[in-house]
């Protein structure tokens, strides 16, 4: 492993010396100590090993010696210096002399004290110095210190994440010193891969979202709370139903295969995000991250560039999202209680034709086609009630959903042992007619222990969640276009059915879906400090998630015309994942710089197993959810995915005086997703930063308080291709033949594909103005992905439609990101802060050798985004015929419907968020706007779109249809012909493609802190919170919602009220 080399280099930092004399002859007068050292080294070959800071308090030396033994010489030199020494081999180690004799009478007693934060919790490892001297100590595990200082001296305290603090000593103590958290965001801690740093020193590109912004939103999924808050991160809801998944894309789409999910790490352990569903429910597949309660999250750090992500190697191509859960804090035991409750409605419903308008369109369609409606072709005109007017949207998705969240936590402990225990409960219903509750109950436990005088530290955390989604099998949004006079019941009061292609949506409500998911995430970290600066650490993680699904289809919900009786589906999946990661880190001061080394290894194993069984011939429909009551069971599928992953990794960081910082990381990964010869890959990155505001010429500049230039370059990868794609094997057919299951080839195997690579480049400028009240970051990145792993489309004559293979195509993602954080006004009682982010991404297929002759020739275009959508060019409605005019790709050549053009692309041009926070005394108002500039398929786009005039209702765009010769219409004429080439072309043409940009009031939260009012009671904090989600959307999009698009449940508008209590 190449890591070894890296560490051997590190090892060579030790200095070796040749053999020299052991006596010294000198004559020096008033020279600095270092000059003495130089002489000694020159004459004897002995080296001095020391921290430069030690020398600041030393006195100049005057000494004469002639062939004096080295030991005697050193004794003389150090006799009146504050330093002591020890000789080992050829090295002389210097250390500070223990301060013994009271040099000044008034400091006879050392000054003692404790350092705490504002919440009264002790701070360990705070560095304390007496100003103007070299005297310095560090607080112990109890936050206590003891230093030789007296009244009048000024103590200087510094600690990561806190504001530097100076205090003049007025008495002999013991003192209690309170440090404030760093106001400058630059001194806040940042979580990085396998470590932490502070923003000021960071060489990578990382955004952070804190618990306050996550937990106060009425959302079930932590991903929902990130929308609009992070530059470069585009999160799109797939469906408005609770528990549905999100599409996450960081800095564009790297891969032709399309998987854009980043790597998720929860408390240091990778979180496997494979969905567990054996079959879909109304909300699609359940979001795996919904298993982590937003209330339990302390912070989320988003790692973007090569420098930040390359330590995660092969899986970091799409970026890394680090989720850190809450930990206990030392001090008084605290009890927190949050209760939130509210309601949701669908954000937008469509305007459809009413019955009269609909029937008029239908009659017109028959007239246009020269056909006569009859009971088979037009029951809506012939047999159904001509006055019935059902608003299907209102009925199916127009109800109010309830939202309730209760969470409570207990935390506290001593400096040695801290704990946190919390529980949450969520209850949410849907906007569909039945109550269909989505319940989630979870608990989170965290324990920290520090022992052996601070040398040993153990962290343990466990997170258990249970989700029950009692839903139905299908999203009912798709029934929006049922004919408004479609009868729900027949004359006998039973459900009405027509033919065998129509379903009765009210009958569908009898179909139940029950999905129960439980998830356990347990991890622990054990750390031991072997020597000061050298820590050995091991992270252990275990995750288990399982899902049990039952969907029941009783007879009453089925069309008698094609039913074979009632049936149910049973699905089971479970995923177990474990990981062991030993690590060693080492920090040491070399000259004015700090060197940090990290090395580690990973072993990870996952196993996903599951099966799906269809059951029928039940004794009674009341027993549909009991598998034993089925007369026939048919196993439909079995899942078996075994995945193992191993790596070695390392990182070197060198920080010279807080000005120049270099960071290099490396990782070698092996994954079972590749064929035996291609399992390993190497990844790595180099990053550098120059904090130019630390340079003399800018120090103390009144306007510019902080400035950093940084850049990074590196290679990350992707193995997101599913398992076993290299394996030539056979699997059993769904149904046995002649008594035994048949076999069928499992896939078209390919044993030779290799890792996909993403080369990332980034340059950034970080600026802080006016004591960092205004922070402005600009990032530029350019990522090129190559060696594309694609499901290579094959011509169906091969017998398979695809094969997994590398393709020498290159995909470019380049973009700019701007982040602005500003404290606009800070007064005693009033504060106004603004956060703004804006991201531009350009996605381009740079190269695709031989695309013209490839299977992707109609899908991608070199030089264009991967997300392009092709279709026909719509040239308006022909006033003569009422048909859509399809233009040729080349306007000069005659009409050719085979001409497919680029309609547009689905990836946004830019997106971002604007958050303003106003606080006045105890009142705080947060307003977050999200904006996206994009285009997309409009309501009537796609092969599911029905022509105007068929037996489906249309939106009010139908009012602009062509009716007679000479009409300047906006949409084609009505026709009953389901398959008519003009509507077929129209529905995938530029006529139904357009702007899908939106500005959305994502979240508005008003908090009122009543603590002051209640100060006489034993209440630490009591706040009331009013919050609204998606309250307002500004868009010109004509479908349900510009975010989810298509015919699926749009996002909800939610209003909640909550109470927060701390005892």
């Amino acid at each position: 492993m190449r890591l070894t080399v890296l560490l051997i280099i590190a090892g060579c930092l030790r200095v070796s010396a040749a053999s020299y004399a052991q006596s010294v002859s000198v004559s020096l007068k008033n020279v600095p100590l270092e000059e003495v050292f130089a002489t000694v080294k020159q004459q004897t070959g002995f080296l001095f090993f020391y921290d430069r800071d030690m020398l600041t308090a030393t006195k100049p030396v005057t000494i004469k010696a002639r062939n004096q033994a080295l030991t005697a010489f050193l004794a003389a030199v150090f006799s009146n210096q504050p330093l002591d020494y020890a000789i080992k081999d050829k090295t002389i180690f210097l250390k500070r002399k223990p301060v013994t004799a009271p040099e000044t009478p008034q400091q006879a007693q050392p000054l003692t004290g404790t350092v705490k934060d504002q919440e009264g919790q002790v701070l360990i490892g705070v560095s304390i110095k007496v100003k103007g001297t070299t005297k310095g100590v560090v607080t112990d595990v109890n936050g206590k210190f003891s230093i030789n200082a007296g009244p009048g001296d000024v103590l200087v305290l510094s600690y990561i994440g806190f504001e530097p603090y100076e205090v003049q000593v007025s008495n002999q103590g013991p003192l209690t010193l309170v440090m404030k958290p760093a106001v400058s965001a630059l001194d806040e801690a940042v979580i990085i891969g396998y470590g932490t740093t502070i923003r000021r020193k960071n060489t990578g590109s990382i955004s952070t979202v804190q618990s306050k912004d996550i937990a106060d939103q009425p959302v079930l999924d932590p991903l929902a709370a990130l929308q609009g808050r992070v530059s470069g991160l585009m999160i799109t809801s797939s469906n408005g139903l609770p528990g549905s998944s999100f599409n996450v894309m960081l800095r564009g789409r790297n891969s032709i295969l399309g998987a854009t999910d980043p790597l998720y790490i929860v408390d240091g352990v990778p979180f496997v995000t494979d969905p567990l569903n054996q079959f879909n429910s109304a909300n699609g597949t359940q979001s795996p991250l919904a298993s982590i309660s937003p209330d339990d999250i302390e912070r989320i750090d988003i790692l973007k560039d090569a420098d930040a992500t390359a330590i995660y190697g092969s899986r970091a191509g799409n970026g890394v999202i680090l989720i850190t859960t809450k930990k206990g804090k030392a001090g008084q035991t605290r009890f927190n209680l949050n209760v939130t409750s509210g309601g949701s409605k669908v954000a937008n419903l469509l305007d459809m034709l009413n019955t009269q308008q609909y029937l008029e369109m239908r009659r017109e369609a028959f007239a246009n086609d020269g056909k006569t409606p009859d009971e088979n072709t037009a029951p809506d005109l012939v047999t159904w009630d001509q006055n019935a007017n059902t608003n299907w949207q209102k009925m199916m998705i127009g109800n109010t959903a309830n939202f309730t969240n209760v969470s409570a936590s207990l935390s506290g402990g001593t400096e040695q042992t801290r704990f946190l225990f919390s529980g949450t409960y969520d209850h949410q219903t849907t906007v569909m007619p039945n109550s269909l509750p989505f319940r989630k109950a979870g608990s989170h436990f965290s324990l920290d222990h520090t022992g052996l005088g601070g040398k040993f530290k153990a962290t343990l955390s466990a997170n258990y969640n249970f989700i029950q989604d009692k839903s139905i099998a299908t999203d009912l949004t798709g029934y929006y276009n049922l004919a408004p006079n479609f009868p729900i019941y027949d004359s006998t009061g039973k459900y009405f059915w027509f033919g065998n292609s129509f379903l009765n949506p009210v009958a569908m409500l009898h179909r139940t879906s029950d999905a129960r998911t439980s998830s356990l995430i347990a991890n622990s970290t054990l750390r031991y400090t072997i020597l000061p600066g050298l820590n050995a650490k091991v992270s252990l993680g275990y995750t288990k998630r399982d899902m049990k699904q039952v969907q029941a289809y009783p007879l009453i919900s089925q069309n008698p015309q094609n039913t074979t009786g009632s049936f149910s589906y049973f699905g089971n999946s479970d995923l177990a994942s474990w990981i062991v990661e030993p690590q060693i880190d080492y920090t040491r001061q070399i000259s004015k710089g700090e060197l940090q080394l990290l090395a580690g290894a990973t072993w990870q194993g996952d196993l996903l197993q599951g099966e799906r069984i269809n059951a029928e011939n039940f004794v009674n429909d009341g027993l549909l959810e009991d598998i034993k009551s089925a007369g026939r069971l048919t196993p439909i599928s079995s899942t078996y995915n075994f995945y193992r992953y191993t790596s070695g990794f390392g990182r070197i960081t060198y920080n010279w005086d807080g000005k120049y910082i270099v960071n290099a990381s490396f990782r070698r990964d092996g994954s079972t997703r590749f064929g035996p010869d291609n399992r390993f890959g190497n990844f790595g990155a180099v990053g550098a930063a120059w904090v130019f505001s630390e340079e003399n010429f800018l120090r103390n500049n009144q306007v510019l308080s902080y400035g950093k230039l940084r850049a990074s370059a590196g290679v990350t990868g992707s193995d997101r291709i599913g398992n076993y794609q290299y394996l030539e094997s056979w699997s059993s057919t769904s149904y046995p033949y002649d008594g035994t299951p048949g076999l069928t080839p499992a896939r078209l195997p390919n044993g030779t594909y290799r890792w996909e690579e993403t080369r990332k480049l980034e340059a950034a400028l970080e600026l802080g103005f006016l004591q960092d009240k205004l922070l402005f970051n600009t990032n530029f990145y350019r990522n090129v992905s190559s060696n594309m792993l694609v499901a290579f489309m094959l011509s169906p004559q091969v017998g398979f439609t695809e094969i997994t293979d590398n393709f020498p195509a290159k995909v470019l993602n380049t973009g700019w990101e701007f982040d602005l954080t500003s404290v606009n006004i800070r007064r005693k009682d009033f504060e106004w802060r603004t956060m703004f982010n804006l991201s531009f991404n350009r996605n381009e297929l740079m190269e695709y050798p031989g695309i013209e002759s490839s299977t992707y020739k109609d899908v991608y275009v070199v030089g264009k985004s991967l997300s392009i959508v092709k279709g026909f060019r719509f040239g308006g409605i022909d006033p003569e015929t009422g048909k859509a005019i399809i233009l040729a790709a080349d306007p000069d050549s005659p009409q050719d419907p085979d001409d497919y053009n680029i309609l547009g692309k689905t990836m946004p041009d830019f997106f971002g968020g604007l958050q303003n926070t106003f606080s006045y005394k105890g009142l705080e108002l947060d307003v977050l706007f999200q904006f996206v500039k994009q285009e997309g398929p409009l309501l009537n786009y796609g092969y599911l779109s029905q022509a105007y005039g068929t037996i489906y209702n249309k939106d009010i765009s139908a009012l602009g249809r062509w009716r007679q010769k000479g009409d300047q219409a906006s949409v084609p004429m009505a026709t009953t012909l389901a398959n008519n080439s003009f509507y077929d072309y129209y529905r995938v043409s530029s006529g139904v493609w357009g702007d899908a940009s939106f500005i959305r009031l994502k979240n508005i939260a008003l908090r009122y802190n009543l603590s002051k009012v209640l100060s006489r009671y034993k209440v630490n904090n009591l706040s009331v919170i009013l919050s609204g989600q998606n309250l307002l959307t500004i868009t010109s999009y004509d479908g349900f919602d510009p975010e989810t698009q298509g015919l699926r449940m749009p996002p909800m508008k939610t209003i909640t009220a909550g109470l927060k209590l701390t005892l």
Partner: protein
Amino acid sequence: MKNIHILLIGVLLTSAAACKKFVDTPVPKNELVSGLVFSDDKSATASVTGIYSNMNAFNYQYANILMSYLNGMLAGDVYYFSAFASYDVFKFNELLPSSQYVETMWGNQYGFIYQANSCIEGLTGAQGLTPAVRSQLLGEAYFVRAFMHFYLVNMYGDVPLITSTNYKVNNVKARENTAVVYDTIISDLKKAESLMGADYPTGKRIRPNKAAASALLARAYLYTGKWPEAEAAANAVLTNGRYSLLQDLNSVFLADSREALWQLQPVNVAGGRNTWEGFATVPATATGTAIFRLDSVNLIHKFDTTTDLRFKKWVDNRKAAATGNIAYYFPYKYKVRTSTSSTITENSMVMRLAEQFLIRAEARIQQDKLTEGRSDLDSIRLRAGLTALPTSLDKPALLLATEKERQLELFAEWGHRWFDLKRTGRAPAVLKPIKGDKWQDTDVLYPIPAAARSTNINLTQNLGYN
């Protein structure tokens, strides 16, 4: 310091050594590597029967609805009761390259060809199989490959000829001349004929045997105008004592009927279903609707409805509630929609003996052996309760009589009528009056699917679809 480095290096070396082994994964428990599939009789057999299971697992996948009813729609015999875009293109002969089932039938048949080729390659070098089993299975694989190519070439015209699993070669193959495709079909069938046994491997007629290969060979010769060969091949089947025409028409489509050369066993029998054909056509209730119906003008009126037993036994109707008049007819060859019994009584017929009489009849008439040919036709007619044909009929009249007999005997089975009209060149004459303006003479071929052409630039389109 020294110790630290030793420790670090130690940790890393250990991990490096452990890594390689760590990522050697075992085969998933729900898959069998190819080497093992052909190492014993049972799994090797499963590799072939897997094809039959997949052919008939779903109603819109391959056999049953798609091959029998949609091709029947193209010929004007069958229609779907309501407007439905995916079927209407068949009803009106307005197939588009992007039409759903145009793509499904293409892709699925090539999928079966891939599996047949995998079996041929696996079985050819297989050790440890019982020789008779290996020979039978290899024969079945050649048979399936020929069967699929036969339907492809008749539906789509010139088609890529796929005889290996090498996807790199197959992915860019152009369309092969129909005559060359037939050469391979015939040579595959000859191999199948010599490799397969005369007995059905498990006694049930649900896997092809030697006679099934001869029967398909007879059909292939007939379609290519090789009359003597067609006659000989059909004769081989007709003289095989294992098969006979059943006098009771209600028994013809039962499982293992003596008329069956090859049947598909229903596999997806949820809800007591037997065949997909029966499930799709037999109405659920006495007043229920039949979804696939028979055209009264183009088909029903051609029956002698007073005597023809095929009309009486293989066709049923629904009466209009208001008038009591016959509202529509539907195929009733299969009589079971769902059954409360767990025993499957009907199998899906793929090839049966009656067709062999009709093949021999046509081959003989074409060779001017009019008397023998007429007697073959009469075998079918007499079984159907009709009288023998007049001896006065000349060759053209007898050929027309053959065409009609084929239509009435084989309606709603595997697209026979559609392929007959196409191969005899009679499609324009017969279908133009039925289909009206919708008919173009180029409609005799399916379009090459858009998905196939967009992934292989070497594929040309059929005339009339550009």
